């Protein structure tokens, strides 16, 4: 059974704290993603990574950074948490498709981390 595991289901942090959200996948996937889900806005991509130590900005990277030191682990870092970063954070992974191959793969999601910044 494929697994993407996020380290926490619920987190409460104070404004200004540095926050680490951890994600681990056991499918040997090259691609990993961090999204946030907010009402009316759907899933918005924060960062993604297609290889160890590689990262690409998504649509809303401001206020976030990421780390991918090992293939199976992708961390999202909130450098200085703010109340507008209160959200549901979702990690996902997928296979890397090379050479412009037609997509035929899906992203697998973790259970989500509900972060509240007070």
């Amino acid at each position, binding site marked *: 059974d494929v697994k*993407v595991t*996020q380290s926490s*289901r619920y987190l409460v942090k104070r404004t200004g704290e540095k926050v680490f959200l951890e994600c681990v996948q056991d499918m040997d996937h090259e*691609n990993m*993603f961090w*999204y946030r889900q907010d009402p*009316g*806005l*759907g*899933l*918005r*991509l924060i960062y*993604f990574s*297609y290889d160890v130590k590689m990262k690409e900005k998504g649509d809303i990277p401001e206020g976030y950074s990421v780390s991918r030191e090992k293939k199976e682990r992708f961390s999202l870092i909130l450098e200085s948490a703010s109340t507008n970063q209160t959200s549901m954070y*979702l990690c*996902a992974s*997928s*296979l*890397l*498709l090379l050479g*412009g*191959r*037609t*997509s*035929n*793969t*899906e*992203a*697998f*999601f*973790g*259970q*989500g981390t*509900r972060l509240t910044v007070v």
Partner: protein
Amino acid sequence: DQQVKQNSPSLSVQEGRISILNCDYTNSMFDYFLWYKKYPAEGPTFLISISSIKDKNEDGRFTVFLNKSAKHLSLHIVPSQPGDSAVYFCAASAHGNQFYFGTGTSLTVIP
């Protein structure tokens, strides 16, 4: 700019009837489309997909239709069941490696 759009934030359907969820996209390079289902406090789970070389894909009670000329896809659930009540996200991909999601439609199936 949102490349994948779900214009109906919510939908209510009687149990046993058909649910139709709609999705529009703007990028003609998208070649793969997916539907995910999400319950509160859980991550999205993959439901069904369709490649751009097809116009229909069926899996049990779930059917996805793709109209490339209109850049429109829809998910049909028939018959609808109370357990289908969830938020449904449409997603699209162009040659893999990145997924673009819609804003979601909250489906309520009334017993």
